[in-house]
C-alpha cells in the first residue's frame, strides 16, 4: 500500500509570550491510500495542530512530513499553497462557502487558482463534483438558499473538484444534527469506498466508528491507534433512525 501521508518524529512548538507550548511532541503517523482515518482527542490534545500540518497550512518545528511522496516540511509559503491546491481538499465545520456566490461557482473556486485550467474544463469538473455529492439540481443556488447539510455537500464537492490525494475534514459534522450527520458520513463512506483517502477530525465516537482507523491524541502524543472493528454503516444507521412526526 502506498503511504499518502508519512510523518516521522514530528514536533511543533508555539511561542506564546515567553512560554513555549509543545503542541506536538514527536509524532509518527502513516496514512495509506484508501484509508478513512479518524483523528480524535480532547481540546488541546494537538489534533488541530496535526490537521493544520497535514493540510500544509502550518509547518513543523522538527521532523519530516511527506505527502504523496513530496517532502513539505521545508517548503515555502507559496509552494505549500500549490500543494494545497493540487493534493488536498478541505472540508470545514462551518462550511466556509462564499456568500452570494452560486454553489457551482463555490465548487469551481479551487480550480480558479490553477491558472493552467481552462474555463470549460473547470466548469465540467465542478458539475461532476456536484453530481457526485447528489446536488445536481442545486448548482445555481446561493449558499443561503441551501440547508446546512446541502451546504456541507457543496463544501465536499469543492474538496473533491481538484481530485486531491487526501480529503481533510475538520469536525465536518459538528454543526449538523444527527440525521444530517449520518447523511454526510454516508457520503464520505461512499467516497471512501470509491478509493478516496480521508482524514477526519472528530470527537464523536459514533462518527469515528464509521471510519477504518482511529488515532487518538493527548498532550501532543498519539496515545492510541487502532483499526475500527464493527465498522458502522452510516446509511443503515440513517434508516434505523426514528422518523420524526411533527
Amino acid at each position, binding site marked *: 500500500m502506498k503511504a499518502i501521508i508519512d510523518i516521522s518524529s514530528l514536533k511543533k512548538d508555539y511561542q506564546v509570550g515567553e512560554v513555549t507550548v509543545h503542541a506536538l511532541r514527536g509524532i509518527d503517523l502513516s496514512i495509506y491510500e484508501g484509508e478513512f482515518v479518524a483523528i480524535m482527542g480532547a481540546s488541546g490534545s494537538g489534533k488541530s495542530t496535526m490537521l*493544520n500540518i497535514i*493540510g500544509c*497550512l*502550518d509547518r513543523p518545528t522538527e521532523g519530516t512530513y511527506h505527502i504523496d511522496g513530496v517532502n513539505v516540511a521545508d517548503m515555502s*509559503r*507559496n509552494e505549500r*499553497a*500549490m500543494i*494545497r*491546491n*493540487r493534493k488536498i481538499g*478541505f472540508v*470545514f465545520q462551518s462550511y*466556509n462557502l*462564499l*456568500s*452570494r*456566490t452560486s454553489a457551482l461557482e463555490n465548487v469551481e*473556486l*479551487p480550480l*480558479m*487558482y*490553477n*491558472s493552467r485550467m481552462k474555463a470549460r474544463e473547470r466548469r465540467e469538473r465542478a458539475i461532476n463534483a456536484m453530481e457526485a455529492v447528489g446536488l445536481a439540481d442545486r448548482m445555481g443556488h446561493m449558499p443561503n438558499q441551501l440547508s446546512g447539510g446541502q451546504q456541507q455537500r457543496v463544501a465536499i464537492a*469543492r474538496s473533491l473538484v*481538484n481530485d486531491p490525494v487526501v480529503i481533510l475534514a475538520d469536525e465536518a459534522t459538528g454543526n449538523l444534527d444527527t440525521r444530517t450527520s449520518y447523511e454526510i458520513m454516508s457520503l464520505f463512506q461512499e467516497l471512501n469506498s470509491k478509493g478516496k483517502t480521508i482524514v477526519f477530525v472528530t470527537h464523536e465516537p459514533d462518527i469515528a466508528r464509521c471510519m477504518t482507523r482511529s488515532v487518538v491524541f493527548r498532550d501532543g502524543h498519539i496515545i492510541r491507534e487502532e483499526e475500527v472493528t464493527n465498522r458502522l454503516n452510516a446509511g443503515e444507521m440513517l434508516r434505523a433512525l426514528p422518523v420524526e412526526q411533527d
Partner: protein
Amino acid sequence: MNLGNLLKVAINALKRNKMRSFLTMLGIIIGVASVITMLAIGQGSKKSIQDQIASMGSNMLFVMPANMRMGGVQQGNSSSQRLTVNDVNAIKADCDAVIAVSPEVRSSGQAVYGNSNWPTTIYGGNEQYLVIKSWTVVSGRNLTDSEARGSAKVCLIGRTVADELFGEGVDPTGETIRFKNIPFRIIGVLAEKGQNSFGQDQDDVLIAPYTTVQKRILAQTHIQSIQMSARSAEDSELAETQVEEALRRTHKLRESEDNDFEIRSQEELATTMTSVTEILTILLGAIAGISLLVGGIGIMNIMYVSVTERTREIGLRMSIGGRSIDILLQFLIESIMLSVFGGLIGIMLGFGASSIVEILTSWPISVMWSSAILAFVVCTVIGIFFGWYPARRASELDPIDALRYE
C-alpha cells in the same frame, strides 16, 4: 489565478456591495469631475486671452520710448520724443526679419458727423498698419502709400464709431466726418474685433495717415511708437535683436548707454497675460486634486473594512491554494477597479459639468483631453497606492487564524 479570473472575482465582490462600491467611488467621481472642470475653466480663460492677444496683431512687435531720466527727474515714457519716422525707415531698410513696419501716433478727441458726436481715438499709421494690427477692411479700401505720406484727410472707421455716428449697420464709406475740427473722408470700414482682454472696445477707433495725425492734429514731428510684424513667430526674437541694433545706430547710442526705447513683442505680452490664469488654473486644479486625494483615502478605508470583513474568505482562499500574490492582486484589482470606474464616471461628469458651466455662465471653457487622460492615469495610481496596504495586509494573513476569525 490568471488575470481574467482575478477581474471576475473583483467585479463579483464589487457587485455584492453595490451601494458601498458606489459611495466609495463617489469620492473619486467628484474629485475627477472637479479636476477636469477646473482645468477646463482655467484652460478656457487662458485660451481666450491668447486668442484676444492674437487678434491684436500678427507676430507683432512694437517699440516704445523708454523712461528717461533728465537731471534726476524720471520722465514718463510718453514725454519722450526719441522715436521718429527715421527709425521706421531704418528698420524697413535693415531688419529682414521684420516684414511690415508702421509708425503709430494717436490722439483722443470727439468725432462729429451732422448732429451726432462720439469720443474716440484716432490712430495714425501707414499703409501696412492694418496688416500689422490684424485689421481687415469690410467695405471700401486701405490707405495708400501716397495718402500715408501726403497727410491726406482720409480715414478708416471702426464699427463702434460708425454705429454711433451713422446708426447701426450703416455703411458710411464716402461720408466726411470731423475730428478735432479737421474733416476726414471715410475711405473704408474696419471689420469688427470686439473687446480685448482689458475690456477695451477695439472697434472704437479711427485710422488715418500718420502724417495727417502728426501735422494736422498733434503738430509734432516725433511718433509715439513703432509697430511691426515679424516674419514668423519663431523669428520674433531675431527681429527684436535686429530692431534693437538698428535703433541704437540711428539713435547714435554709445556702448555704455542704455537703450532709450523699449521693444516688446506680442509673445511677451501673451506670456505675461496668461501667467495669471496659469496660476489660477494650478490653484483650482490643486484644490480639486485634494478632493481626489480624499476620495483615494475613502477607497483605502473601505478596502481595510473589506479585508477585515472577508478574513474568513481570505483564509478559505488560502487553504484551497490561493498564494499571497493571488490574495494581494485580488484586493488590489478591486481597489483599482473602484478608482478607475470612479475615474471614468468622473471624466464623463466633468465633461458634462464643463458644458453646463459654459452654458450657465458663458465663461470660455476648453475641456482638455489631456486632462482626461491624466485623470485616468492618476486614478489608476490612486487605486494602486491606496489599495496596496489593505491588500498587503490581506495577503499576509495567516490562513489558520483567518479561517478561525469570527
